């Protein structure tokens, strides 16, 4: 940071886009950012980096962003750790936001950690709660720690901007808010800021991640109780009917029944669906850390003493190979599929 912290004012949201599509977490950040900006009496702004993305400013304006800083360059066509970070750092040094929020995505977490080091400021990762301290006007940032077994609240008292990455699907999306006048501020950066020593050669989209579990509203997950890779077929059927993502416990992934990208829990992904089906999953603390923010957890397990039943909203004790096909059939009827 440069200069007194009093010079740092507005609330900024990093508008993450992928192939020109603004990610929903950006709208969640704008929803949360609006509350913070209003309680501080400052502007809510968005930062949009990419190539050929200027028309997306409307989406951000419609969700309440008052100023939209855009850097539109061919070099920024896909996310790049070095160039995206350097551009962000450049804009922060120029415009001095008081708060900078990013989604706790792969991109958000990689970029903000690098940016915080370069900006000599604090970053709190994977926040689930943000509020302004009425006394100090500092941002109180709450996050889970130690496999979700503890929560901690931290501040960045003497450095700016106060940076946070925010867990997806925890905050409510900003409502359409078209009444405001938004300023679109196209930014120029020096050529060396766009340089990078890494380059994306290609992207391989994983076939089965048609429903990405971190974005899914419903997840059907299997554990050791699925018995083998073939056991997951009944979960895929259920997921197909529900339009759900397929998840797995560490035990299932370690047995090579399903790819690591499906692993839910501390060693895998943290998810936050409306409904989480835990099928044949006993419920180790590391798995529970990844699912505890789900609205509804349904456990299906033959062992009535499995720890998963202690936290499940609904539990069914029984043979999942009998139960799940019936469940799939019932939902198919319900959804007329």
């Amino acid at each position, binding site marked *: 940071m440069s200069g007194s912290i009093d010079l740092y004012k507005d609330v900024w949201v990093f508008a993450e886009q*992928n192939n020109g599509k603004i990610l929903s977490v950006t709208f969640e950040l704008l929803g949360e950012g609006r509350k913070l900006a209003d309680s501080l009496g400052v502007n809510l702004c968005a930062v949009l980096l990419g190539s050929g993305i200027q028309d997306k400013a409307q989406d951000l304006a419609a969700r309440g962003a008052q100023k939209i800083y855009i850097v539109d360059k061919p070099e920024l066509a896909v996310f790049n*750790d070095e160039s995206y*970070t350097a551009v962000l750092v450049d804009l922060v040094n120029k415009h001095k936001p008081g708060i900078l929020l990013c989604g706790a995505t*792969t991109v958000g*977490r*990689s970029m903000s*950690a*690098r940016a*915080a*080091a370069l900006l*000599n*400021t*604090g*970053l*709190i*990762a*994977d926040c689930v709660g943000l509020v302004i301290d009425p006394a100090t006007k500092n941002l109180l940032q709450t996050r889970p*720690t*130690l*496999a*979700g*077994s*503890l929560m*901690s*609240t*931290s*501040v960045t008292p*003497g450095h700016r901007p106060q940076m946070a990455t925010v867990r997806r699907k925890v905050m409510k999306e900003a409502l359409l808010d078209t009444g405001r006048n938004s300023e679109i501020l196209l930014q120029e950066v020096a050529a060396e800021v766009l340089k*990078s*020593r*890494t*380059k994306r*050669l290609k*992207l*391989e989209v994983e076939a089965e*991640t048609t429903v990405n579990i971190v974005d899914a*509203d*419903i997840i059907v997950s299997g554990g050791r109780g699925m018995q083998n890779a073939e056991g997951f077929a009944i979960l895929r059927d259920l997921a197909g009917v529900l*339009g*759900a993502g397929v998840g797995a416990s560490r035990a299932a992934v370690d047995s090579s029944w399903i790819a*690591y*990208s499906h692993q839910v829990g*501390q*060693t895998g992904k943290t998810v936050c669906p*409306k409904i989480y089906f835990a099928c044949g999953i006993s419920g180790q*603390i590391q798995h529970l850390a990844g699912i505890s923010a789900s*609205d*509804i957890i349904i456990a299906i397990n033959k062992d*009535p003493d499995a720890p998963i*039943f*202690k936290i499940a909203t*609904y*539990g*069914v004790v*029984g043979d999942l190979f009998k*139960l799940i096909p019936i*469940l799939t059939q*019932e*939902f198919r009827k*319900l959804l007329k599929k």
Partner: protein
Amino acid sequence: MHIVVCVKQVPDSQSVKFDQNTNVMLREGVASILNPFDAYAVEEALRLKEKLGGSITAISMGPAQAESALREAIAMGVDKGILVNDPALAGSDAWVTGYVLALAIRKLGDAGLVICGKQGADGETAQVGPGIAAHLNVPQITYVRKIDEIDDKHLVAQRLLEEGHEFIDSSLPCVLTVVKEINEPRIASLKGKMAAKKAQIVKWTVLDIGADPAKVGLGGSTTKVLKIFAPPARQGGQIFTGEPEQVIGRLVEQLKDVVTAAAK
């Protein structure tokens, strides 16, 4: 190539117990282990050394007992362990850790590649790897699941993204943070364990690495923890038992509204 692996000692989450009533962690008798995510970093370094030759140095920043995490790495096959240990470092946050480890790596002078686990199993910030890269002014690739190619000047690695895998070419030196999928860490051999027992752990202080005393420890940290508390306990709900058709009927009755709204 000289490969540096950054490791951390963490409480063994398998042995962490909680007070049933208050949900507060019971720290007594909790064992400390090499951060499980760092074991993948150590293993990947060992595999690269088998292919490319060279040496591996493990570096940790922490209290004196963090030596044992370095010894675990040496038992797996790492050549040398360095502990940056100084009372002035107590209370350091992720920013300081990245700064200090970067200075220690710079002091080594010839690191061609730095590998870290994706995050600490305790703090889970995932900030130290990118922090080291930023302070060293080298490129980074996070969440690496595979290294496809490597020579003295560059590497190609696959990063795990939400939607798939991204193949990235990076010049060297660079910093990688690796995920579990990258390998299966070896179990230390008896010979390795003997070597680890005897190994001399090099100790560096804040002064040794040339860190600005104002930028380390509690005072140098950019963030402050105000409070730590137990999360609201999630209560168990209804358990259904009985004939499969019956229990599923009752479950579907409970879920039908939310499923109809959420299913696409």
